[in-house]
């Protein structure tokens, strides 16, 4: 505590909070990626009646650390015909929204870096840069597979952002706030998922599409596009794309937990257990991520036209209808 006091005295409370918060977020991002890659491989293996990584550490849990060391030690190769400036910039830009989004996510009642009154908006505003980074990376690679992957990523992300934001809008209207902590507080009695199951479903489907995960993984469809937008990237630059992808999974799951599943509050009926909010929050978040992994290894990839038709003809009308119906309900009830 003395060290903490010294730090606060030296930097001032705000700066100390930001620096400590960012260091914490960076640590969380790394640990989360290490864990999720292992979980993904393990779950995939068991779904496919294999065992998965098992040699390095108990249950192979240290496998990703070893892989990470390999990636860090690899040479950064820049192919000859790429656009050098943008090629280097893209992996850095893909990481920016990740860092910003964690600033407003309420991990527990007291553990959040900044409780902004436009917190929810901040996450969606900065998620745009993710799409841009993918596009820049794909374009700068000067490779037809990369460019096709990038084009697909932009088309898909733009399309699925619309129903996503529309459902989030219903939640905002229901809880009457854009502040993440107040949205959680408004679910103290009943989680939003019980009031708006359709919105939760639409959000989760769109979240899968926004994070480019199967069945919506056409931007990096291995069987068609080699590796999509990051075909030309290797070593740590590839690792940054990878890290951002898994951090984005954590972000969309954490936002889903906050919006629909009661944030740091306990599961219904388990409130008597002496478990801190942080544990509840991460339990719910990783449960949602597990569902996403489960979906990925269960459903085949959609074709591009199916994907677009599904969004524009089913998801957007459904989300619009949901918004109108809930606006009516809120107007009648209050």
């Amino acid at each position, binding site marked *: 505590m003395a060290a903490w006091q010294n730090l606060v005295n030296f930097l001032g409370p705000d*700066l100390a909070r930001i620096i400590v918060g960012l260091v914490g977020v960076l640590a969380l991002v790394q640990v989360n990626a290490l864990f999720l890659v292992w979980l993904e491989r393990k779950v995939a293996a068991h779904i496919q009646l294999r065992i998965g990584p098992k040699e390095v550490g108990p249950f192979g849990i240290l496998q990703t650390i070893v892989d990470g060391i390999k990636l860090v030690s690899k040479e950064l190769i820049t192919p000859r015909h790429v656009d050098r400036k*943008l090629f280097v910039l893209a992996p850095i830009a893909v990481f920016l929204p990740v860092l910003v989004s964690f600033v407003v996510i309420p991990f527990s009642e007291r553990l959040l870096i900044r409780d902004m*009154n*436009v917190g929810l908006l901040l996450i969606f505003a900065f998620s745009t840069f993710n799409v841009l980074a993918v596009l*820049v990376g794909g374009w700068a690679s000067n490779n037809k597979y990369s460019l096709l992957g990038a084009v697909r990523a932009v*088309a898909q992300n733009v399309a699925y952002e619309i129903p996503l934001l529309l459902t989030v809008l219903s939640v905002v209207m229901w809880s009457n706030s854009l502040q993440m902590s107040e949205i959680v507080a408004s679910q103290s009695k009943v989680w939003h998922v019980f009031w708006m199951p359709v919105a939760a479903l639409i959000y989760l489907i769109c979240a899968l599409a926004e994070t480019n995960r199967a069945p919506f993984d056409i931007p990096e469809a291995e069987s068609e596009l080699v590796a999509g937008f990051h075909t030309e990237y290797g070593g740590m630059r590839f690792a940054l794309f990878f890290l951002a992808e898994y951090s984005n999974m954590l972000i969309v799951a954490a936002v889903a937990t906050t919006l629909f599943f009661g944030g740091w509050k306990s599961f219904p009926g388990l409130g008597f257990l002496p478990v801190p909010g942080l544990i509840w929050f991460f339990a719910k978040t990783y449960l949602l991520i597990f569902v996403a992994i489960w979906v990925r290894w269960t459903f085949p990839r959609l074709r591009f036209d199916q994907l677009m038709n599904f969004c524009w003809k089913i998801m957007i009308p459904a989300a619009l209808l949901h918004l109108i119906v809930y606006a009516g309900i809120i107007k009648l009830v209050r």
Partner: protein
Amino acid sequence: MNSVQSLIQPQVLAQIGFAGVVALTLTGALIAVFPRNILYNVLGLIVCLTGVAGIFVYLGSPFIAMMELLIYVGAICISIIFAIMLSRPLHLSLPKRRLPKVGLSLGVGTAVFIMLSAIISRTEWQPAAIRSSDWSVTTLGTYLLTRYDLVFETISLVLLVAIIGAIIISGYARRSTS
């Protein structure tokens, strides 16, 4: 108080941040105009608009800043990129810069600049904090639907024209290819 500590005072940091935001806006604007590669221009525009969002934060309305990012970067710039994808391939040789065109755009740009600076210099500016302390989302929403209703509706008319235009253009393209 030593030198490092005086450098990280909140006021000093705010000054540095403001300078950074302005630099971001101006650099972005320059990149948006000068390079011949159209993708660089769009990325410059994005940098510029991000800087503008930062200026809104300094004006005390983070909500408008977020909306700036969400609408201008997230929607408008992405749709410009879509338009680039649908236009001529980038590896073809660029059309030459024609003097009348450059002159015309320079003239229009200067005219708009003079008009805006005339308006700016004639207005008596009051700090946002003196005019009102309430810039919450609720207040802004009420203003949009009461006092500035006409502006709001006119903007939606522009969007309507854009949508109809997009439908017509894509309709022509489809008819001519099939």
